[in-house]
Each structure stands twice: as structure tokens, then as C-alpha cells.
């Protein structure tokens, strides 16, 4: 008898599932229809009040996701900040899609385009090709690409002077090292990360040319295990300050430093993209994060959304964030840096802003820079 009941249950599940499968398809067509209509932005522009409530922002992350403690997270924080000010609701007014792999960049960008989102932000230069392919198909959507220049009328390109910020943390590293040996851990080896690298080395050597800088590229932005390994090798070899420009991989570097600090060693990490002081906190409340090279992607995202909503979106233009605009630089609070060091960093910042120091962006430029020191 019980088996009869089981059989009945199975069949009823089948039937329910069949219905569940059919019903949504019909439901779908209704919300789809008004969305199609939204594709005419001119209507919206004429009625600004309606635009306010309909305005929607989409964000496509690379494989790191919005909790990568790095630039995806930074961008997302910028979006959330703007949304909170407008008391927007996640999912209705702003949303993100995480890409599991590179082949999803195009469909993920297109998904926002299809839904007629007003501003769509993509973080990372890897989106270059995807952006070039998608943007022309959704002329009514304002796209923003960070770290890359894509010249399309509806794409705003945001670039940062990472070398300038890296120079400043290089100065901090040179002041902090006791073994006269510092390290640089890069994510993947390409031009963008070389900017961090070149700027950092230039900063270190501007303070003291005799300091040795070792470097290693992890080949991956989301592999903390590898980061930890590299950091362990570096600290083992006498390095006492590591600057990481490696996204999620860098979390491994911070972990290694924390482990060593717990065992009484004096080691430092310099964070990247956002203020990573909290990430390096030890049990006693101090942090192994000396300072961080902040890249204000949050400000960039915020500004772009604001511009988009005001109808002043800088499509087709390149927006540069440098030291002068505080688009890059060290955090306001640096509990691990002394007054003296901060003053010195400020002095260098001054020189960079007024053009006295031109920070190298490539390894070739770095070689020239060093020969002039």
C-alpha cells in the first residue's frame, strides 16, 4: 500500500513540475513587453521624474565576483553607495552578474542591454573585446569600462594612474624595510600590472637605490593558495615588505603575513585597490597592512552613474583618475605609518602632481627613470 502512495506521489510531482514548467513561460511575456518599450529613451528623457524611478544600473564582474576584496568589490561599493543615497532597491534598480569565465562576458553584458538598463559597468580591461562587440548593439545603454579604453559613442572609458599611487606606497615600503629587501607580487603579467610594478620600484629606489626589489607574477588573480606560497618564499628569503597587485591572489599574501606576524616576525603587506587595513588585522588589533594603494574605482563607478542619470554621461571619452584628483593614492588613515613617513609621501605626491617627477609606467621607462636617479 505504501508503495502505491509513493507511486502516486511521484506522478503528482511529475504533474506539478509540468505545470510549474508551463506557467512561468506565460508570465514571462507580460514583463517582457513593457521592457521592450523602455528601449526608447527619448520618452524617458522628456519626463525626468519617471526617469528617476526607472533608472537602472547593471554591473558585470570578471571571475572574481563582488566579494573579491579588490576592484570588483570596490566598483560594487560605489554602486551601492549611490543606490543607498537614492534608496534604490537591489535587483530592481541595480544588479550585478558574476562571470564564471571569459566566454560569459558578452552574454552577461548583453543581458543588461536586453533588459534596457541605463548604465552598465564592466570592471577590468579583459572586457575590451566584449565591450567592443556589445556596445554598438545597445546604443541606448551607457556603458562604462574600467581600466581600458574603448572608443565607442556610448562607452565611457575610465583609466587610473596606478603607477603614481604605486610610487607612493613604494616610498612607504622603502621607509619600512629593515632588511633592505622588498617584494612585489603581481596577478597576471600584462601591461596594466606592469604599471603597478614600475611605479612601485621607482618609488622604492627614489628613497634608497640600494634596496633590492624582488618580483613574482602569480599568473592568476583568484588563487590565494599561490599567493600565500609566493609570499612565504619571499619572506623566507629576507623580504619584509610585500606589495601585492594581485586581487584575490593577494589575500593569500596577507594571510601569510598574518601567520608570520602571529609568530613574532615583523613583516608587512601593502594592500591594493581598496584600503585593506581591516583584512590584515591580527588578534591584538594591529594590522600587517602597512598602507594600501587605493584605486578609487568606487568613486569612478559613482561618478559615472551620477553622470548617466544627469544625462551628462561621458560616452566616447576617456576619464583619467590620477593623484591630482585623488583617484589613486594612500588611505586617509594609516595607523602603521609614522607622521614623518606620511610627510615624506606627501612631499613626493606634491612633486608628482606638479610634474616634477614623471613616474614610469613600463619596465622600459623604469630603466630610464633609474638611470637618472
Amino acid at each position, binding site marked *: 500500500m505504501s*508503495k*502505491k502512495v*509513493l*507511486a502516486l506521489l*511521484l*506522478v503528482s*510531482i*511529475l504533474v506539478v*513540475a509540468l505545470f*510549474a*514548467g508551463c*506557467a*512561468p*513561460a506565460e*508570465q*514571462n511575456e507580460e514583463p*517582457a513587453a513593457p521592457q521592450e518599450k523602455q528601449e526608447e529613451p527619448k520618452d524617458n528623457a522628456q519626463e525626468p521624474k519617471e526617469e528617476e524611478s526607472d533608472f537602472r544600473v547593471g554591473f558585470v564582474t570578471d571571475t572574481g565576483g563582488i566579494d573579491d576584496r579588490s576592484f570588483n568589490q570596490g566598483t560594487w561599493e560605489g554602486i551601492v553607495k549611490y543606490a543607498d543615497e537614492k534608496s534604490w532597491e*537591489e*535587483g530592481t534598480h541595480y*544588479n*550585478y*552578474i*558574476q562571470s*564564471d*569565465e*571569459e*566566454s*560569459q562576458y*558578452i*552574454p*552577461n553584458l*548583453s*543581458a*543588461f542591454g*536586453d*533588459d534596457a538598463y541605463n548604465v552598465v559597468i564592466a570592471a577590468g580591461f*579583459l572586457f575590451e573585446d566584449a565591450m567592443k*562587440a556589445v556596445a554598438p*548593439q545597445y546604443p541606448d545603454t551607457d556603458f562604462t569600462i574600467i581600466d581600458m579604453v574603448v572608443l565607442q559613442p556610448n562607452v565611457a572609458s575610465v583609466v587610473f594612474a596606478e603607477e603614481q599611487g604605486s610610487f607612493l606606497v613604494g616610498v612607504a615600503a622603502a621607509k619600512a624595510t629593515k632588511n633592505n629587501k622588498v617584494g612585489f607580487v603581481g596577478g*597576471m*603579467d*600584462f*601591461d596594466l600590472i606592469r604599471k603597478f610594478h614600475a611605479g612601485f620600484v621607482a618609488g622604492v629606489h627614489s628613497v634608497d637605490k640600494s634596496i633590492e626589489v624582488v618580483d613574482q607574477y602569480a*599568473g*592568476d*588573480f*583568484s*588563487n590565494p593558495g599561490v599567493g600565500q606560497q609566493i609570499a612565504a618564499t619571499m619572506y623566507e628569503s629576507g623580504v619584509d615588505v610585500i606589495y601585492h597587485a594581485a586581487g584575490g591572489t593577494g589575500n593569500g599574501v596577507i594571510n601569510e603575513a598574518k601567520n608570520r606576524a602571529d609568530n613574532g616576525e615583523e613583516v608587512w603587506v601593502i594592500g591594493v585597490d581598496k584600503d585593506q587595513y581591516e583584512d590584515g588585522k591580527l588578534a591584538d588589533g594591529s594590522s600587517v597592512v602597512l598602507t594600501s594603494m587605493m584605486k578609487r574605482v568606487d568613486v569612478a563607478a559613482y561618478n559615472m552613474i551620477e553622470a548617466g542619470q544627469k544625462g551628462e554621461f561621458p560616452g566616447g571619452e576617456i576619464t583619467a583618475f590620477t593623484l591630482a584628483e585623488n583617484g589613486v593614492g594612500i588611505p586617509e588613515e594609516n595607523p602603521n605609518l609614522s607622521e614623518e613617513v606620511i610627510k615624506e609621501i606627501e612631499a613626493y605626491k606634491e612633486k608628482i602632481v606638479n610634474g616634477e617627477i614623471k613616474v614610469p609606467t613600463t619596465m622600459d621607462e623604469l630603466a630610464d627613470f633609474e638611470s637618472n636617479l
Partner: protein
Amino acid sequence: MIKYITDEKNQRFIVPLISVLFGFIAGAIIMIITGINPIDGYSALLDGVFGNTRKFGEWIVSSIPLILTGLALAFGFRTGLFNIGAEGQFIVGAFAAVAAGIFVELPKIIHLPLVLLAAALAGAIWGFIPGILKAKFRVHEVVVTIMLNYTALHFINYLIKILPGSTNTRTVDVFPSASLSSEFLSSITRFSRLHWGFIVALLAAFLYWYIIERTTFGYELRSVGFNQHASEYAGMKVNRNIVYSMMISGAFAGLAGAMISIGTFDYARVIGASEGYGFNGIAVALLGNNNGFGIVISGLLFGALKAGSSAMALAKVPKEISEIIMAFIVLFAAMNYGIKRLLIHLRKEEK
């Protein structure tokens, strides 16, 4: 209806169907627990696949490599090998196709088959290594292929960077004559990246079925997988057949790589970590019951879960849900013995 479901003759496809159904029910339960209406979730999934022609095209695009890696794994399973190295064979295949597409320019009718052949051959060579090691020295193929996955990843990353014109992240585009992408297919699907690879996948599935089911060669391969000693006693060349099986399996995986490199992208990319197509192939093969037609269907299903996940994310359904559903489907497919038992019980009850 119960009679039909419990009939042993129909089990071949009833069991996978029940696995899928259970997978979706389990997904629905998880959604309810996390406070999401499963109807919203699944309608978003359907919308992500059938919402418009572009989404439909993208669905096919994400299914094509899964079908091929599914065939690769299934070929191994049918011949008694666990080719967990499809990932590595996928990577070398992807690269070989691009290399053949960059270095020579020929009329499309010759070039495209040549490029696909290069991919299949590269995959086969990458499969040959564990094959010969297993045949000669009885080294287990799982160990060798896992190692070769990493070897392929880093070796190919290096090769990509030294190709003429490459940057640190990608190669130049292949000649148009070596590309599977099609303006026609793209235009009828609202600029999706739909490419001719779906024909390759279907042909490969047919070829798989033909080799395995219709040739003496395939029969021998299967027999070696089933019982090496009996096969040897029957006069089959066991060692040679192991190598052949690994090579054919590798060829399918290599073709899958080409689908991404000359279909979806038109260039090869430096990647930080494996993208998981080879591993997903295990799931596809398992659900497809190692049957050519079944693999096409299960490849399409997993492709749908993959392609639909961004639409689900837009509907406030975390895309991890679709991964959980995939995992549950695989779990239930792996439990097929239990499901069979259940059906047998039900049948007895009927009587």
C-alpha cells in the same frame, strides 16, 4: 502511465529524466529555503534560454563544447577509462586550432576542416601520453591526466604568448577562413555568437554512436574496457586498444577546445585556471548515459543551466542556484541504481 515509467525497456531514458526532475525539485527546495520563489527562479531560467533569439543562440553556444567534452568522457567510460584529462586535451585542442588558423590561409572549404583536424589531432596526442603510459606501464590514467591538465595549461599559456603578434593575454585573430563564426547565424539570432560548431557537435555525436555501436573496432574497444583478460584471451590487442581509446577520447576533447577558440572567440587566450569544460563533461556523460543522443540532450540541458544563470542573476536568484541544480542532477544520475531499484519495486507493486 506508471506501467510505462516502470517498464524496464524504457529505463534508459526514464532514469535520467527522473534524475533531472529530482534535481530541479531539490533546486526548488533550496530556493524556498533561501526565500526565493522557485517559480520566479525557473521562469528566469527559461527566460534566459528562450527569452529572445539572442539568448537562444547563446544557449546553443554554451552547449556545444559541453556536448563534445561529454562525448570525450563517455568514450572513455564506455572503454573502461576515466579520462579526467579532457580539460588538458581541451586546452591543447583550442590552441592547435588557433595556431593552424593563424599560420596558414587557405580557402575556407579546406582551411576549416584542417583547423578542426589540428584540434582533434592535438587532443589525441595529449590523450596518447596517458594511453601509452597505461598500456605499457599500467600507470593509472587518472593520475597522469590530472598532471597533464596542469602541464597543458601552463605550456599552452607560454605558447600563446610566443605566437607572432600575441599580447600577454591573447593571440591575434585567426584568418576568417579558419573561423566557425558566421554572420548569418549571428544575424538571425540578434547578434549572438552562434557559430557552425553545433554541426560539428552533432556530427561528432553521430560518429561517436557509429564507432561505439556499429563497428567491430568499437566493439573491441568496449570489450577491452569491460574485461581486459577476456578480451586478451579472445585475441584482441588490449594495449593497442587502450591507446586508441584514449586518443579518440582526447580528439573529442580537442574538438571541444576548438569550439571555444575558433567559434566563440576567434583567438586563443591566456587563462589563469582551467575553465572546467572537461570536468563538466563528466556530468554530461553521466547524465547522458554514455549514449550519443543522450549526451546531446544532457549537453543542451547543462548548457541551458549555464546560459540561463545570468538571467537568473538578474531576477535576484543567485547564480549559484543553477550550479546547485547541476550538482543535484549529477548526484541523482550517479544514484541511478537506486532509482532503478525504486522503479523495479513500483513495477512489482503493479503486478
